[in-house]
């Protein structure tokens, strides 16, 4: 027992897995106990069984469609933000003139919450898909650019200098050293921002939508259907963890050379 309590010491993979699973099991148990022993009102905390039944019912009644439309909005907003943000961030991270021009502006925008833009996006983009995608974009774009800039700037100067002394020209240093060195950090930034994208799509759907997981939760709220709300919220959690695991698996595949497991 003691050997598992050493600070920061590794533990067997099996034990890690068992502990992770038991946390979920424990939560489920406490939940059930709260309902049966603690007599919490089902309108506040429906029993797990009721949520499971609601999930099955919803699965055949629009849940898949809501997942699909939310997923579409998240991916489109995320890809748009990444398509502009990653090159811009790399540029700012490697050229001081680009940093001086863009950084203060983007840092300024970063402090304006995306949710504050929602009424404006409705005026600009109406209440169709573009508006939801717009909120996701505003929510993650500014953070993403600044994080990518930071990752790029953290490439060790000695690696860059080494390439120069081996005869590389600036563009070759960029392509052969700066990019590959920054890539794991870039992927990690994308993983984190994808998580935020899910937050913002729900915010957008709670305010103005007639489809998607946010709408499902909002609608369930209007009908005081707590089990349905639980299904909506839990679904987002499950989707989030799937995205995260997919990213981690991809990183392991792409970067077998990393010292630390990502």
């Amino acid at each position: 027992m003691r050997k598992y309590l050493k600070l920061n010491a590794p533990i067997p993979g099996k034990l890690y897995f068992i502990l992770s699973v038991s946390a979920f099991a424990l939560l489920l148990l406490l939940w059930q106990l709260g309902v049966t022993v603690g007599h919490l009102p089902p309108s506040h905390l429906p029993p797990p069984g009721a949520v499971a039944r609601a999930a099955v019912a919803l699965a055949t009644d629009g849940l898949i469609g809501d997942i699909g439309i939310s997923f579409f909005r998240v991916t489109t907003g995320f890809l748009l933000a990444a398509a502009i943000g990653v090159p811009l961030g790399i540029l700012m991270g490697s050229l001081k003139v680009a940093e001086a021009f863009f950084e203060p502006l983007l840092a300024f925008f970063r402090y304006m919450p995306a949710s504050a833009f929602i009424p404006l996006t409705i005026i600009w983009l109406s209440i169709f898909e573009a508006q939801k995608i717009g909120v996701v974009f505003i929510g993650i774009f500014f953070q993403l650019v600044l994080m990518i800039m930071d990752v790029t700037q953290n490439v060790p100067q000695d690696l860059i200098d080494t390439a120069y002394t081996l005869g590389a020209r600036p563009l070759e240093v960029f392509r052969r050293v700066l990019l590959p060195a920054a890539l794991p950090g870039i992927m990690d930034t994308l993983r984190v921002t994808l998580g935020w994208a899910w937050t913002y799509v729900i915010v957008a759907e709670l305010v103005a939508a007639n489809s998607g997981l946010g709408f499902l939760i909002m609608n369930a709220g209007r009908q005081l259907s707590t089990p349905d709300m639980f299904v909506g919220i839990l679904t987002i959690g499950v989707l989030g963890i799937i995205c995260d695991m997919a990213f981690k698996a991809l990183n392991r595949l792409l970067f077998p050379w990393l010292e630390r497991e990502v």
Partner: protein
Amino acid sequence: MALAAEPGISGNKLAVVNLTREFNFKHRKITAIQGISLEVKEGEFVTILGPSGCGKSTLLRIIAGLTEASSGQVYKDGRLIQGPGRDRGMVFQSYTLFPWLTVRQNIEFGLNLKRVEADRRHEIVNHYLDIIGLTAFADAFPKSLSGGMKQRVAIARALANDPDILLMDEPFGALDAQTRLVMQELLLKIWEETRKTILFVTHDVEEAIFLGDTVYIMTARPGRLKARIPVPLSRPRSFEIKNSRVFLELKTSILEQIREESLKAATMMPAGCD
């Protein structure tokens, strides 16, 4: 440029003329090196010895073309140096292998830039893998190498590119004492074979004497050259020579000279390196 008027510039592999580098640190002007002049002959192994501080690395970085001098010039084969180039390879104290490339890919990095064709590239890389004794690790990533192995690869990578001059900035500084000894002997063996011109910076007196044909002693900030000491030890050298009388006497005399500098450096305000 009137080269003929300056025999030191045209007759040597490397000529450093009156080099000074200042930088700003917290609104103060710090002089890292001041008025350094030195000449290095083709095939010479020069070591530069000095207390910890920034001067030695700064000098090497200016010669490499990575840092600009505030004043003074560096000439290689009589031509003014104006930036980094593959003719001056460099090995750093920190581990600078590209972690996403295998050992083989690291060594051939410069050859790829030069577009050397695959057969020839393979031949060169295999040759250096053999010299550094890491043929079995050709396809390993740097993460699975020890510190000493990483520096072996870094040396091989610099040499495979066939530079005119090899600049080494305390390359064994991060290694343990035993590995250091082995690496010093390996470097001498490589130098005997290739006869590259080497400029080697260190703060280890034994290392400076053991490796060098000539030892330059540098002062604490501002870094100036305090003495130029020819090393009268025969070649090839092996580690036993470190116990010889000549070696020990030289070591004692150099230690005395460097002691004052180390004391000065130890009581100096710290300043960032550039």
